[in-house]
């Protein structure tokens, strides 16, 4: 009974938060609402017995996505505040977040949503009550996969090809974001280093902790919930903190080294995928006895790449210019 109550409350809260996140009057409120939305979503994943997704959602869906959106809202608003000094009327009319489109758009949207909702609900209601899916096959081949956690086995062995392409998606997004940054510093930049005491001490405590936890997630990911994506996302959280704290980039971290880190996951994964073919195997067909170490090596490289890419995606959105801090370098 209490479980039912939780389910219904959680769903109502989810829908309400989603509505708020889209239509809250001020855009800052709207984007911040995405954080509780993502966290509640993570709870729902845990409730649906999907701990791997819960960790990823909390770190990526709630954490990083919200951070990206807040950074963007700030950047857009800051620009308009700068403009407002020159031309109040024009800037405010533009920055007044026109909440909704015209009545026509709202009507079309509502009708479309209702029609699609009705059809979809009918389709979902018509789904067969039982469908084991592919779990019997996964179960049967798990011992040959080199991973004890079935989700890791699917991600890195059975359907490793998807994951390989997915790391390419990350790289593509990074190239796309980096090329949009400007060459010349805009008026947003101020050279002053605003070190906040709170943030400083937070960084000093939390960053090492995050590194340890993500190392643990990576190591345990073979057999328990966790793995490269969760570990990489957590590490990226540390990277975001370092950026926010305006930590200087260490000297050894040149642009070339950063690019190598970015490409490491794809190179390692792709290299393994192709090199097993020399012995007459198919693409990505690990020798059974080597599956475990190969998967661990791929995951380690992927973790580094995912962490660096996610951090740089945030850095690229945060600053429209080339600054000598952590996010600089690639592209």
């Amino acid at each position, binding site marked *: 009974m209490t479980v039912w109550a939780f389910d219904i409350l959680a769903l109502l809260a989810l829908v309400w938060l989603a509505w708020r996140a889209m239509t809250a009057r001020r855009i800052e409120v709207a984007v911040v609402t995405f954080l509780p939305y993502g966290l509640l979503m993570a709870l729902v994943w845990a409730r649906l017995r999907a701990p791997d997704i819960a960790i990823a959602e909390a770190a990526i869906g709630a954490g990083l996505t919200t951070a*990206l*959106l807040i950074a963007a809202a700030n950047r857009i608003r800051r620009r308009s505040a700068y403009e407002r000094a020159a031309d109040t009327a024009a*800037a405010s009319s533009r920055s007044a977040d026109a909440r909704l489109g015209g009545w026509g758009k709202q009507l079309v949207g509502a009708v479309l949503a209702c029609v699609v909702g009705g059809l979809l609900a009918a389709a*979902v209601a018509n789904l067969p009550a039982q*469908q084991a899916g592919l779990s019997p096959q996964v179960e049967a081949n798990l011992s040959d996969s080199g991973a004890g956690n079935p989700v890791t086995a699917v991600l890195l062995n059975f359907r490793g090809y998807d994951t390989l392409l997915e790391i390419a998606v990350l790289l593509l997004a990074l190239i796309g974001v980096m090329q949009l940054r400007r060459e010349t510093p805009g008026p947003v930049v101020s050279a002053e280093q605003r070190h906040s005491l709170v943030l400083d001490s937070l960084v000093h405590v939390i960053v090492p902790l995050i590194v340890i936890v993500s190392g643990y997630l990576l190591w345990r990911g073979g057999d328990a919930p966790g793995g490269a994506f969760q570990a990489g996302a957590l590490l990226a959280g540390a990277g975001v903190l370092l950026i926010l704290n305006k930590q200087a980039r260490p000297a050894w971290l040149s642009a070339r080294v950063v690019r190598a880190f970015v490409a490491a996951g794809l190179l390692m994964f792709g290299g393994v995928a192709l090199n097993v073919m020399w012995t007459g195997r198919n693409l990505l067909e690990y020798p059974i006895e080597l599956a475990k170490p190969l998967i661990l090596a791929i995951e380690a490289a992927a973790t580094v790449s995912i962490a660096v890419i996610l951090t740089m995606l945030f850095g690229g959105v945060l600053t429209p210019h080339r600054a000598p801090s952590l996010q600089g370098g690639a592209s």
Partner: protein
Amino acid sequence: MLYAFGGVALVCLGLYGLVALEHMLRRILAVNVMGTGVFLILIASAARAEGAPDPVPHAMVLTGIVVAVSATALAVALACRVAEQEQEGRPEGEVKP
């Protein structure tokens, strides 16, 4: 199965937002809401079976979350650039198709 209907509701909310909202960040939010709705349908229908849930949809959703954050980052970067260019009022060969 309750959660699958919740997923349907989120998909519809996202769809409405996508059509009705104009602010760029809100449209990005709408796409994200729609995405979580689709993921919820996937996982909820995988959780129907008794015993351990099917790991394949879980892997699919993990992939989907990473794809979503990549696309969101690119969209956000584009949105910032559009907003800045609008505020700077540089038409740069403005053309109405």
